[in-house]
């Protein structure tokens, strides 16, 4: 495999340093977890990385359509981490606490369940990189009709079906009228995917104007060229139908009458919210505010956190940066701790918040 076909998560060094006797567990093998794994493995750490899904890559593998991100390049990077840097991948293993679990997309893939407490005991430190997978609800009537999906409910099975799990199939939208709500990258991805799956029509409803669309005018042009309809200033009021979806009712400005868009399938793509295991115990609110002794450290001393689970939905680049910084912070902390000098750590940086300018959702 030529180097240009591989995402080099361990880019900081040409090869790993000899084992340094420390071990770190990483929960979540998305971009933030993989970047942290690469950094630490390069420095000679023994890295165990856990993911509930059958393949590493997080949303790079299970969210973003493969037309936009080449899956082979990500998997080659994962293989390099495993073979050359000795990272241990534990896939289909969900890490959780004892409290009742929320359900997110992709849960049905995990076979093994392990407790966070166990990881904390078995390793010198842990980094939580579990991303942001729970879709935000629109909170309008009819959202629970069959045929109404969230963006991840829609996109996840398309990618997952490709990874040979029986029982997972792409949404059956062939010949249907599909309406997509939102105008971020997820909305664009859903719309493109629906067209590829053979939808009869695809309408994108956005409550603001074309110019405001986070996916950008060029993307809208491309969607329209591919056959989609972009309806600006359409604010969804309710989903219509009995049992299953029949249409979407929208309000448009300066018009008394509501607009009815016939649709047998709909996807809401208005963003995701973080779903960390142990959110309260970890004191994530304080980490977000930067109110911590150590960059990216949670309320549990040797547990760190990075990526979208901390910042909310962001971008691959932001997640990678967060993973790298958490890994560096963790390594510095362990170095000083080994000499009982933790008090010397100077935290000059606050945890970055996603900026509205670059937020994709």
């Amino acid at each position, binding site marked *: 495999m030529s*180097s240009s076909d591989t995402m080099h998560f361990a880019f900081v060094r040409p090869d790993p340093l000899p084992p340094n006797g420390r071990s770190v567990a990483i929960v979540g093998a998305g971009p933030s977890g993989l970047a942290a794994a690469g950094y630490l493995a390069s420095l000679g750490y023994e890295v165990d990385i856990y993911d509930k899904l059958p393949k590493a890559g997080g949303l790079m593998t299970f969210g973003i359509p493969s037309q936009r991100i080449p899956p082979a390049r990500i998997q080659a990077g994962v293989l390099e981490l495993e073979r050359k840097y000795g990272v241990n991948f534990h896939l289909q293993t969900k890490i959780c606490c004892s409290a009742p679990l929320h359900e997110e997309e992709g849960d049905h893939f995990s076979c093994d369940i392990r407790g966070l407490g166990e990881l904390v005991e078995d390793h010198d430190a842990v980094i939580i990189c579990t991303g942001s997978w729970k879709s935000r609800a629109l909170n309008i009537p009819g959202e629970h009709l069959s045929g109404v999906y969230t963006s991840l409910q829609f996109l996840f099975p398309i990618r997952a079906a490709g990874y040979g799990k029986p029982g997972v199939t792409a949404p059956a939208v062939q010949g249907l009228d599909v309406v997509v709500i939102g105008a971020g990258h997820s909305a664009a991805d859903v719309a493109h995917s629906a067209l590829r799956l053979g939808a009869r029509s695809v309408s994108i409803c956005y409550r603001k104007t074309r110019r405001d669309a986070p996916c950008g005018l060029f*993307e809208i042009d491309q969607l329209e060229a591919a056959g989609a309809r972009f309806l600006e200033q359409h604010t969804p009021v309710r989903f219509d139908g009995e049992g299953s979806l029949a249409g979407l009712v929208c309000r448009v400005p300066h018009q008394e009458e509501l607009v009815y868009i016939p649709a047998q399938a709909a996807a809401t793509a208005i963003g995701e919210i973080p779903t960390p295991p142990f959110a309260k115990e970890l004191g994530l609110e304080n980490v977000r505010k930067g109110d911590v002794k150590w960059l990216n450290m949670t309320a549990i001393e040797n547990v760190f956190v990075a990526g979208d689970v901390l910042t909310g939905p962001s971008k691959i680049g*932001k997640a990678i940066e967060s993973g790298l910084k958490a890994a560096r912070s963790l390594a510095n902390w362990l170095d000083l701790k080994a000499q009982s000098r933790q008090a010397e750590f100077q935290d000059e940086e606050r945890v970055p918040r996603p900026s509205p300018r670059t937020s994709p959702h």
Partner: protein
Amino acid sequence: MSESPAGKVLYVDYSTCIGCETCETVCGFLHDAPRIHMTRTRDGVLVPLYCRHCEKAHCIRACHRGALARDRDGAVVLQPMLCRGCETRECTQSCPYAAMVLTNKGVAVRKCDMCSERRAIGLGPACAAMCPTGAIRFLDRCELACAETEAAKDAEKRVLAHLRPSANK
């Protein structure tokens, strides 16, 4: 040192770039502040602006102190030793790709050096190593022509139209 067309270049295929910011954040992680910068074009497309390490580099000619020079791999590198203290910052004006930026840390400007320290130990540029799509590549200058597909040229045209609205044909 004479300017030779040999050596290496950085190349971004804007038609396959997804605007994920990885190049920018990884560069910033390694070099304290990024030397490749995301910008949103008027079409709303997010792309990185980057140094092309031009064969005939305007910045090298613009700098009166000789602080910009070509290294042995063909990278245009800034020598902070000579740059320090310049107030005119003509190099930043001269760059047609908006790849040189003012900075308030250390010397007056910063620019991509194709990861000079990494090349010294046999590694390639970090941004190219971590780009999830492979849109950004570290190429021999002679490979450039093959890398420029029709789609890439179209996408590049749109980015340049954003950078130089007046030069729009």
